[in-house]
Every structure is written in structure tokens, then in C-alpha cells.
């Protein structure tokens, strides 16, 4: 049992979503021993797996907030990290479309807001230009604003890369370790009671996403409550991709960013998300009303999209707190940092949040010595259509025929990639984890043809004890 062996970690990070994984990676770059605790049986299985995967510039954040700064910095940090780690990023740009006179009137102020957020490349365009850029739009667009640097990425690979990197740098990833109670010892260490045993540490970072308020209460605070805001999404067939070669945004309203249309790096088109407040933190099901709402929106935004098949639908929960900013706070006495309310921009901001947490810890007196022996970032398997994939790579196939054996036909995933995922440093716990690592079974047939073959391969290659 970890902890029982007397190990005292310098830092324990709670939650292996994008934010926690980024923090663990950052801190393990400084001669510290780090444990990354995750309640579930895989990393990246919370909100970080179900979002719209846009690498935001932060053009529409509230100027002056922590979120504004961290999204802007995160956009840059993740952009260059993605190149080093082989995470697919496509700079498709976004077009914000005004559908009403009020929308149109709001655009100039939005451009000014973008400038206040340090982003000065937005341009206002007329209806003709709007339809030139996205001919498939429904009738009635009055004008728009371009955001050329909004990009799309693969949220699964980002999360997995950060966690893999943290592990390579020496951090321990402790899965099935849900923190249930917190105790302090006289020597200034903290004991985390978890479903996987006791974990002792000197410093704790709470990056528990939807569970961050609960964990915060375990530390004796009562300062915020998370209201999960469900976002449902529809993913359309790859044959729809020519309809949307860039992100199409609505003009934001009171209830949030609104429903967008976005290409995905896997070559699909996505429509969503909805925004609906919940109390059940496990309410990741989809609903009849959500589908009806999206159908209706889609019919107006892009009627031809609605003639295509739906490949997938899912729902994610934003960790809304009722505040218009992140809630990041250090408690030096408790040697504890709260990273809460990372609602709808955490994928973009994650790496910058990690740097921010690192500087907060330094301010609290944690000694940080940069390591000179850091390994290079991991090279992640490419899941993006804009970059070469194994089934297209003659040399790779010649070296290992398993990369020429396509098993999941819709997504063109090869036996070699499934084997690699199962034998990697952080193997999947089951079919869902395998989908996020390879795209297998994510396609239009949803396993009609390949479920048996994929499951066989997974069972063959997963190390004993990984499942």
C-alpha cells in the first residue's frame, strides 16, 4: 500500500485531468517527488475527455481575469508543446457569425474585448465574406468576425501526453486513488486517505475538477460549490467535413459561449455544446431535449450538415462555480493549493495553470530547483488527419507489417497502434480508454465491423493486471 511504506511525496496532485496532469508534469521538472492521484482507473476520464477540443486564443475572456491571462499563455505553451510531443493541432481559425441585428451590433465591442485580452488579429467581415468562408451556412447571416488563431486539437492526446511526460520525469501516477479524507500530522505532512490506501505528502494540489469543491471541504474550507453544467455534443460523419473547414461560433449570449460548429482533428464535424445546469455530477448521459435543441440549431446554422449521419453523441460537465473566473488559491499554512472552477477553457489554459501553480508554491516557500536532466517530451501516436498516420506510411509498414493491418476500418486504426497503446507506459483500462488512445471503434460503424477484432487485440496485448 503506498504511504504505508513510509514514502512521503513532496507534492501530491489530486486529479489526473488535463489540469492535474499538467501540474504534475510541471512540478516534476524541479527535483521534487510527485504523485498524481486519480479516482478512476484511467487518466483523462473526466471533463477532459468530453469537450469541444478548441485551443482558444482567449479573445473572448473577461479582460483582466486570471482566466484571460492563462488562456492566452496556455495557447502559446500548448501550441509549442504539441509540436514537440506530436499532438495534432490544426490552425483552422474561427468565424463568429452574427445572425441578428443585436449580434451584429455586438461585434465591434467583441473586437475591442479581444484587444483588451492581448489579441489583435480579429477582423469584422460582411455577409458576403461570411458565405465565402463557409458556403454551407444557413440563410440569414448578417456579418461576422474572424479569429484566425483559434485552433483545434485532440484533448485525449493532450491529457495523455502530459500524464506520460509527468511519469517519464519521475512522477508516480496512482490510479484508483479517490481522496476521501484528509489528515494532518504534527510534522507538517498531510495524509490523504484514498480508495487505494494512504498517501503522505508535504504539499497538496487540488485539481479534482468536478470534485474540487468536495476535496476543498476535506481541507476544511467552505468557499464554493460546483454546479455541473452539462454540454451535449453531436459528432457528424467524416463525409461532412468539407462543409466546415473552420470553427463557426455564435455571438456569445448570457448563457455562455453558445452552440458552435467545429471541425475535429479526426476529420469529423461537431455541433454543440448545449448548456444545462445539473446537480448530479455523474449526469454525463445525453437527453431528448438536448438532441432536439441541437437538431433545431443545426437546421438553422447549417442545414446540409443535418442531412449527414451522426457518428457519435456525448455529454461533458463543466465545473461551473457561479464566478466569472478561475478559483486558484494557495493556503501556505496548510501547504495546499486549490485549482477550482476551470470550467470551459481548461484544455487551452492547462499548461499555463501549471506554471501559475508552480509560482504560487514557490511564493509559499517550496524550494524549486530546475532539473538539468529532463527527458524530452514523449512522442505521441498521431490521431490527427492533417498529419501522416501509420496506415499511410509505407516505410513504417515495411518495418512492421502490423501498421499495415487496418483493424478499425472507419477510423483506419491498425493492429500496430492498438498493440502500442496496450503496451505503453499508461495503458488503457478497457475499450473506452483504447478509443481515446487510438480512435478504434470511434467511427461511423461504432464497432459493427471491428468490435470483436479490436477487443481480441486488446486482450492479447494488455499487460496482466492492467485491466
Amino acid at each position, binding site marked *: 500500500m503506498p504511504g504505508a511504506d513510509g514514502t512521503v511525496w513532496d507534492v501530491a496532485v489530486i486529479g489526473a485531468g488535463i489540469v492535474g496532469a499538467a501540474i504534475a508534469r510541471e512540478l516534476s521538472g524541479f527535483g521534487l517527488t510527485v504523485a498524481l492521484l486519480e479516482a478512476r482507473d484511467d487518466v483523462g476520464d473526466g471533463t477532459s475527455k468530453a469537450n469541444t477540443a478548441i485551443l482558444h486564443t482567449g479573445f473572448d475572456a473577461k479582460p483582466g481575469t486570471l482566466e484571460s491571462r492563462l488562456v492566452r499563455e496556455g495557447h502559446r505553451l500548448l501550441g509549442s508543446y504539441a509540436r514537440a510531443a506530436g499532438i495534432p493541432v490544426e490552425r483552422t481559425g474561427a468565424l463568429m457569425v452574427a445572425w441578428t441585428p443585436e449580434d451584429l451590433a455586438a461585434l465591434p465591442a467583441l473586437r475591442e474585448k479581444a484587444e483588451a485580452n492581448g489579441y489583435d488579429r480579429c477582423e469584422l467581415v460582411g455577409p458576403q465574406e461570411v458565405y465565402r468562408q463557409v458556403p454551407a451556412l444557413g440563410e440569414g447571416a448578417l456579418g461576422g468576425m474572424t479569429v484566425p488563431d483559434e485552433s483545434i486539437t485532440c484533448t485525449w492526446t493532450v491529457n495523455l501526453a502530459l500524464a506520460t511526460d509527468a511519469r517519464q520525469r519521475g512522477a508516480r501516477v496512482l490510479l484508483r486513488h479517490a481522496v476521501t479524507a484528509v489528515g494532518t500530522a504534527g510534522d507538517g505532512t498531510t495524509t490523504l486517505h484514498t480508495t487505494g490506501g494512504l498517501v503522505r505528502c508535504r504539499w497538496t494540489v487540488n485539481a479534482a475538477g468536478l470534485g474540487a469543491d468536495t476535496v476543498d471541504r476535506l481541507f476544511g474550507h467552505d468557499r464554493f460549490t460546483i454546479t455541473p453544467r452539462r454540454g451535449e455534443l453531436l*459528432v457528424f460523419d*467524416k*463525409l461532412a467535413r468539407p462543409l466546415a473547414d473552420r470553427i463557426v461560433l455564435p455571438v456569445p449570449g448570457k448563457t455562455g459561449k453558445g452552440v458552435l460548429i467545429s471541425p475535429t482533428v479526426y476529420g469529423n464535424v461537431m455541433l454543440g455544446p448545449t448548456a444545462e445546469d445539473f446537480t448530479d455530477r*455523474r449526469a*454525463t*448521459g*445525453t*437527453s*431528448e431535449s*438536448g*438532441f432536439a435543441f441541437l437538431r433545431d440549431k443545426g437546421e438553422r446554422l447549417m442545414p446540409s450538415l443535418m442531412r449527414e*449521419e*451522426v*457518428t*457519435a*453523441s*456525448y455529454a461533458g460537465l463543466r465545473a461551473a462555480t457561479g464566478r466569472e473566473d478561475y478559483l486558484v488559491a494557495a493556503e501556505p499554512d496548510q501547504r495546499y493549493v486549490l485549482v477550482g472552477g476551470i470550467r470551459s477553457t481548461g484544455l487551452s489554459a492547462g499548461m499555463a495553470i501549471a506554471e501559475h501553480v508552480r509560482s504560487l508554491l514557490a511564493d509559499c516557500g517550496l524550494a524549486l530547483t530546475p532539473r538539468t536532466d529532463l527527458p524530452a517530451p514523449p512522442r505521441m501516436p498521431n490521431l490527427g488527419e492533417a498529419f501522416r498516420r501509420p*496506415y*499511410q506510411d*509505407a*516505410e513504417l*509498414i*515495411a518495418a512492421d*507489417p*502490423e501498421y*499495415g*493491418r*487496418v483493424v478499425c*476500418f472507419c477510423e*483506419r486504426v491498425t493492429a500496430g497502434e492498438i498493440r502500442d497503446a496496450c503496451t505503453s507506459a499508461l495503458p488503457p483500462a478497457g475499450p473506452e480508454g483504447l478509443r481515446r488512445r487510438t480512435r478504434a471503434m470511434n467511427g*461511423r*460503424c*461504432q*464497432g*459493427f*465491423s471491428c*468490435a*470483436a*477484432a479490436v*477487443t*481480441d487485440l486488446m486482450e492479447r496485448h494488455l499487460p496482466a493486471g492492467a485491466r
Partner: protein
Amino acid sequence: MTAQVLTPDAVVVGAGPAGLTAAAVLARRGARVLVLDREDTPGGIPRHSDHTGYGLRDLRRLVSGPAYAARLAETARQAGADIRTRAMVTHWTGERSLAVTTPGGLLDVRAEAVLLATGARERPRPARMIPGDRPQGVYTTGQLQTLVHGGHREVGSRAVVVGAEAVSWSAVLTLRAAGCRTTLMTTRHARPEAYAAFTVPGRTVLGVPIATGTRVTRISGRGRVESVEIEQIATGRRRTVACDTVVLTGDWVPDHELARTAGLVMDPGTLGPVVDTALRTSAPGVFAAGNLLHPVDTAEAAALDGAHAAERIARRLASPETPAPGVPLLAEPPFRWVAPQLLRPGDPAPPRGRLLLWPETHVPFPRLTARQDDRTLLRRRLPWPAAPGRVLRLPWPPALPLDPKAGPVTIGLA
């Protein structure tokens, strides 16, 4: 390192009943024919369909799916066709050229003629937009059969089967073989779609109740399916049915990716490519056959399509052709589609001399007419019913008094 170039006379994409039968005919006609299939073994869907019901009209006897698949593959091989499996056709590199991924490397196949025989699949849950949780235990029939056929995989103990067509009964049989009882079948239609030959013994021998006029409105369960919610469409009344397995059957969509990326003219009803009665698509030298054209008919119908297309491909290989302009054929309600969809003067009758129609309502003894402008070309009273969920076959003569300059021919009820 680049792709290996292959230059057969004809390339067939898909080694299902349609593709294999076409390949056998072409090889017998002396063509060099290459068959590509992405699966480990040739045969298409029947490979995993472990029950009898195949081969009546083409092999002239009833055999099991796997036996049927093996038979067709063997016949094509003996005729001289080159069948390559684990060969995934990924995209077009030219009008009649295809890029292929195989464990042996990339292929660049350049042929004189292409036959698309890529089949059809059942719509999975997301495409049907059934809301709710995302538990394990929800399958399509195809998926269920590959899992069960592969052995070792466990199914639950109580299933709800969505659909009551022939394929739905195929799912019930597979479930039964896997030790899972079907507690309910549901269908949107007012009566079961399958032939009475399935439905009557199904109801009595297998003891499966059928909820007609219903739709599934929700799937619930954490981890594993726990229940489905079913709505009586007419009244809106809903009830919950406990089960641990859901099989979504029927609701076919053709595997039309290659057809669409070739830029072929597509039919909005079948969602497959538009073809004439010689099974030519809109691209010269590109033909199509099987369930890609009519989702979904029996394996034997797909096979006979394949033979029909092969005859036309063999002719084209022998002497280049310029097909005459055609007259479009349109289906009127209650038919969702008709196949083929283009009539050219001088072309042969459609495969087996039958047009295929997809009815959306039940009609006991349909009287059909084909009209061009205000002229009636054909009147037929069928001695069998039109039923949703299965193809209606309409005998169609080779030569009709078509006016090539007039408007489209429409087919509907008299």
C-alpha cells in the same frame, strides 16, 4: 518507399456475396480480376451469420452463412480471381485507381473497370440518436454476430431487440445460441416487418412478444444496460423495460464512403450511388452492386447483382462503350426509394428482371404503375404484400416504350 502498382483489368472492392460472385463471372470471361477486402477472410456479412438461410436463388440450396461465404470465395478463386484480404481501400488516386493499405505494404491499383461492392451496415445507436446513458451491452446485429461467432464473448441474459425484420430474427437466434433470452421485440411499424415465415414461429416457438407501433426513447444503466424506455408512438405513453442487452437491428445505411469520395451521383433515398439497369454509376467504368445499392436485400440478391454487373463489365472491357443518355426513375410515396434509378434505351433489364422498392407502409396487394409524364408505361398487381423493412420486388421488362426526351419515369401505387 512507395506503393506497389497493380494493373488488373477489373478491381472489385468488397468480397461479400456481390463482389465474389462478380469476380467469379469476370474471371470466367477471361478478365484479370483483383478482389480487395479489408477483413481477414472473404465472404462479407454472411461469414458471421451462423444460421441457415443463404443461397436459395444463387446456389439453389439453403446453407449457413459461413458455408455460403466459403463457397462463394472458393468458386471465385477457382475461376482465377486474385482475392486479397486485409486489403483496405482507403481512397481514390484517379478515376479508376485506388490506394490500398495491406500488411504487405501500400498498393496503387489502376484498373480498366471498378466494381464497388462495399455493402451496408446497420445504423448504430448514435446515428439513431437514442439518448440516455452510455452503458455496455448495446449492439447492432452485425456486431453481436461477430462477437458471438468469435466465441468466448459473453452476452447478457435478457435482451430487447429493436426491429422486427428478418435481420431482427437473425439477432434473436444468435442471442438464443449465446444463452440470452429475448424478452421483447419492438418495432415502429403497426405490424412486424418480417415475412410471416419468421414472425409466426418466432412468436410461438421462440416465445418473443412484439411491441408494435413503438420507439425506444432512452437507454439507462451505469456500466451495463439496466433498462430501456419505450414509447407507444400513437399515445405517447412510455414504459420502462428491464434488460441487460439491447440489439439495434436493421435501419441500414450503405457503406458509401468510396462512392461519395469518387464524386458519384448519389440517390437521396438509398444513400447509395445512382445506377442504371446495367449497374453503371455516373463515373465511366465504375460499377456498383449489392447492398451498397439497395440497403438491404438478401445475400442471393447481392450475388445476382454481382453476376449482372460482371457481364456488363466484361462487355466494356471487350469494347469501349458510350451509354445512351438515360431517363431518371423516381419512387413515389409510400416508397422511400427505387433501385436502379436510371433507364437507358437499349440497356438490359435490371438484375433478375426486378426493380427493387423500399415501402414505408404496409400494403396487402399493391398495384403499381410506372408513368412517364402522363403516359402509363406499366401496370402490375403483385400477389405479395409491400411491407416496411423489406425490399419489394417488381418484375420489370427489358424493353419499355420509353421516350428518351420526356421527363422522369415515376413509380407508385395505382
